[in-house]
């Protein structure tokens, strides 16, 4: 469009000179398109790769020598209950030990303080047994693993809940 007009002008001069063409170009449509594409790609790109948490479960080879018995004094049992409640007691939960089941939650002053307490931290042999009940949800499991990471507790295991534990919960 612009070029045609300029050609019409060039007839005036006596000498035929190489007319300096204006280098102006209407870039608006191109810019529109460029930004449209830019917006599209910005919105569809997912930068964040999913985070993961690695879990290793004990290898069940059915070899009795692999099962190292834990002394009751070196065990902390955490039961994940309904409505994000956490129950815990020290020991393995044998009825003759008469374990004292305490209830807490996932807040900063909840199970984390138990894991950071002298009784757990000062005992290098302490093993934390995590037993989610049927009433707990997946988030609880992830949260308790997270607490292990936060409190730097290395020895922990995911264990199936036993009848004894169910009894303990029912009796409280």
């Amino acid at each position, binding site marked *: 469009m612009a070029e045609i007009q300029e050609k019409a002008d060039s007839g005036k001069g006596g000498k035929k000179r190489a007319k300096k063409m204006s280098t102006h170009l209407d870039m608006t449509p191109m*810019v529109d398109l460029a930004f449209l594409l830019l917006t599209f790609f910005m919105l569809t790109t997912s930068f964040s790769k999913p*985070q993961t948490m690695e879990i290793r479960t004990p290898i069940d080879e059915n070899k009795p020598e692999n099962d190292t018995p834990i002394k009751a004094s070196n065990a902390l049992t955490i039961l994940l209950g309904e409505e994000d409640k956490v129950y815990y007691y020290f020991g393995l939960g044998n009825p003759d030990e008469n374990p004292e089941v305490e209830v807490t939650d996932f807040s900063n002053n909840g199970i984390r303080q138990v894991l950071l307490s002298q009784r757990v931290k000062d005992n290098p042999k302490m093993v934390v047994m995590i037993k989610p009940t049927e009433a707990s949800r*997946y988030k609880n499991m992830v949260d308790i*693993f997270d607490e292990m990471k936060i409190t730097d507790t290395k020895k922990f295991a995911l264990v*199936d809940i036993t009848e004894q534990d169910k009894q303990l919960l029912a009796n409280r």
Partner: protein
Amino acid sequence: MPKAKVKRTKPSIDMTPMVDLAFLLVTFFMLTATPTPDEAVIVDTPSSVSEIKLRDADVITITVSNDNRVFFGVDGKHTKETLLDRMAQKYGVTFNEEQRQTFALIPSFGVPINQLGSFLSVPGPERKDVNQPGIPIDSVNNQLSDWVWETRKLNPSVIIAIKGDVDVSYETVDKVISTLEARKVNTFNLITDMETRPTIN
């Protein structure tokens, strides 16, 4: 007296630098874009302080939705095609070429194998609306176990990621984990969201 003419200049700005920048960004995003695949179901993953990133390739994703349905997904077009053949043979079902092609393209599915054929025949845009009942994981009919097993036989370097919803009951997650343990998978990843590590004192 002639009126003083206001000289009209065309309002034009030099857009070149802006265009340069815009195209640079477009190119950057185009090259880095990995479009988020259409997930079969939307799950809200729990958050954790873990900072391990999930790797890009050779990952089996087991998705557990909040209504306790289980979905299976694996990457790799070739793996998926061979996997489907093996599973078809195992369960005595047949898939036509078109269904195999579709299977190689979908990121995950949650239907029992006898319904998989008809699920794959549903045209693309409608497939999202199909009600997928989830892959059976009962002890009598554990198809998830076979999917995982066959995939691992095809690609031994594969890792398993469990993507569970916040509200899934532990019972279902336990079933999935037990299934994996029964197949001697003792290391797996739980997909989580990012969370800042709280300071402990």
